[in-house]
């Protein structure tokens, strides 16, 4: 050890013992480590709480979407076989004839009013035959956990109450669920019109919100003087609008798009419908309302993407004599594109799950036709789910759970698309 290190006048302090166990050694590590450990534990617990919450959500949905179903019949389906062909294998025309023979006039009329028999698919007709003629009756449904754990008890109980009933394991989420229309009968009901309604609405939302949001973001980031009072007021308002409850947007949409702009949003100007029959509760109104709802988010996301474009790119372009617009078009927007797209899909993910504003705007709850365009009446997945969960029958809760799975799948694929697009369009700086 050199003299300089020994000399307290140079080091400013007496020599400290270096190692644990040496005389005069002061422990200042153990306490800090204990504290660090405590924080780490807190973080782990927080993460676990999140995982448990997510897990219970999934469990809850899956539990309802699959399970045992006990079905009783009034008429033996074998007795309905025609010419040696089983009921399940009959063509559409035969099924329609069967329905006309066996059903009461009044019931037939109700069904024809929904959709004429001739226009219905074989599967649909078979479904009607099974409920109305065979008298398929769901006498009991059980959730997935119960079905797996208490199978024997269920079977025993069923044998006692409904000796003729058959017990089958049913997945409520099945191809037919996606492709069939809504129906008052939960066994046959599907989410086809709700999926199409959601897709149409989202399409309108994207078409309106994406260009508007990007354009506003370009103006605020590249043109507007940031130190001006007006710009700051606008910016603050956009940030606040992003947090306004969605039902407020629903009321705005109801006032403006459904009522005030009814001639436009109902499509009366295209189809020539009179004001008496025009109805503003269309996909267009819903899409525009959701576009208003996500516009602040879209602007903020796009602004952040544009702000992340390095200034050196702009400088290089300006330095070559390019105009502001040329710089924005050739360099700022392409570089911001991945961020803008990610932001768009995130705001669309929000819009696709919105329920409250669409209830206010007037989504229909009973729709038996595919939406055909922006001027159709509509329902969307969240509305459908909301409506089914509020029914008393257990089967409706099961198809609501299946519809939730469909909605989750749509959200997941949107997010996957966001990641894919971002990776595809990403440029390195």
């Amino acid at each position: 050890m050199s003299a300089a290190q020994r000399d307290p006048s140079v080091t400013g302090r007496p020599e400290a013992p270096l190692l644990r166990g040496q005389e005069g050694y002061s422990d200042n590590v153990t306490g800090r480590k204990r504290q660090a450990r405590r924080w780490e534990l807190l973080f782990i617990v927080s993460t676990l709480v999140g995982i448990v919450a997510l897990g219970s959500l999934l469990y809850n949905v899956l539990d309802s979407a699959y399970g045992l179903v006990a079905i009783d019949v009034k008429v033996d389906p074998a007795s309905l076989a025609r010419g040696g062909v089983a009921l399940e294998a009959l063509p559409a025309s035969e099924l329609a004839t069967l329905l006309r023979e066996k059903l009461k006039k009044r019931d037939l009329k109700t069904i024809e009013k929904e959709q004429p028999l001739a226009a219905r698919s074989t599967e649909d007709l078979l479904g009607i035959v099974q409920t109305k003629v065979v008298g398929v009756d769901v006498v009991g449904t059980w959730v997935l956990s119960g079905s797996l754990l208490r199978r024997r008890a269920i079977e025993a109980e069923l044998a006692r109450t409904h000796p003729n009933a058959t017990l089958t394991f049913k997945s409520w989420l099945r191809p037919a669920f996606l492709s069939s229309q809504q129906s008052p009968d939960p066994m046959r009901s599907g989410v086809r019109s709700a999926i199409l309604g959601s897709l149409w609405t989202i399409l309108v939302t994207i078409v309106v919100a994406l260009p508007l949001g990007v354009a506003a973001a370009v103006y605020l980031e590249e043109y507007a003087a940031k130190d001006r009072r007006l710009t700051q007021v606008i910016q603050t308002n956009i940030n606040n609008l992003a947090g306004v409850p969605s039902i407020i947007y629903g009321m705005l949409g109801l006032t403006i798009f459904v009522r005030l702009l009814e001639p436009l949003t109902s499509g009366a100007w295209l189809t020539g419908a009179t004001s008496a029959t025009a109805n503003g509760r269309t996909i267009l109104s819903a899409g525009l309302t959701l576009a208003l709802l996500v516009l602040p988010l879209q602007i903020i996301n796009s602004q952040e993407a544009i702000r992340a474009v390095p200034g050196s790119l702009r400088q290089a372009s300006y330095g070559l004599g390019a105009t502001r617009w040329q710089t924005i078009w050739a360099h700022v927007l392409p570089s911001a594109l991945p961020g803008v797209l990610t932001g768009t899909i995130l705001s669309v993910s929000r819009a696709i799950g919105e329920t409250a504003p669409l209830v206010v705007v007037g989504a229909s709850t009973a729709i038996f036709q595919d939406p055909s365009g922006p001027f159709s009446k509509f329902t969307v997945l969240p509305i459908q789910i909301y409506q089914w969960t509020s029914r008393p029958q257990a089967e409706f809760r099961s198809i609501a759970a299946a519809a939730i799975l469909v909605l989750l799948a749509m959200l997941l694929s949107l997010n996957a698309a966001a990641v894919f697009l971002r990776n595809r369009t990403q440029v390195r700086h």
Partner: protein
Amino acid sequence: MSAAELVGMSGSMPESVGSSDGAADDLILVQDFSFYYGAFRALENLNLTVRDREVTALIGPSGCGKSTFLRAINRMNDTIRGVRYEGDIRVAGQSIYQADTDVADLRQRVGMVFQRPNPFPQSIFDNVAYGPRVLGLAGDKADVSERTRLALSQVGLWEELGDRLDRPALALSPGQQQRLCIARTLATEPRIILMDEPCSALDPVATLAIEGLMRRLAERYCIVVVTHNMQQAARVSDRTGFFWLGRLVEFGPTNDIFTLPQEKLTEDYITGRRG
């Protein structure tokens, strides 16, 4: 590349006015120029003339206003809010701080190379072709290609990368990137090239390449370079200006500045006693 080759390519270049001596060659004229960032005075009453076909080096410690002055010549400072100036800068006889000055046009005539190589995240070709395209200089595709080839040849990149122009510019080495940025500027047919510490992010070999390039380019262009490296100023420049706290302390032929500085401050700085 020889000087004859360079002159041979000058078909589309604006010709220099007048003879090689006297006031006719004074391309940039700075008169009583002061510059403010808000209340802070970054430049104080500058007066100097910069000659065509010469390398003019600006030296001085960080924050002394060299870069601010450089960016005042092509009005890049305009992109910063709250700046203000007094006095005037004339380029080729015309004041560039008039109300009707077209800034985009000025920046085409007065090109700029930045401290950190900043190629666009595109192909090598698109980087150079961007200028001719957006400025409307090029007629057709063949013309764009020819201009790109010329610009890349001038910086020696055509020989190195001629067959790989579709590669991303960001995959090049920093030295190549900086030469690409120079080629990108050359493609817009500037008269003056401003370089803001162009070698500070480069290794010594790449630095030498850029310095050699500056000397060659000085045969056809007016070059103003800001540098922290006094050896570099001594090696490449014809004239040197020494900045101190926003003032131009001394300005003259590089040889005189480095061998016979008139001001005590200059002498202290270049000998390392101050800075």
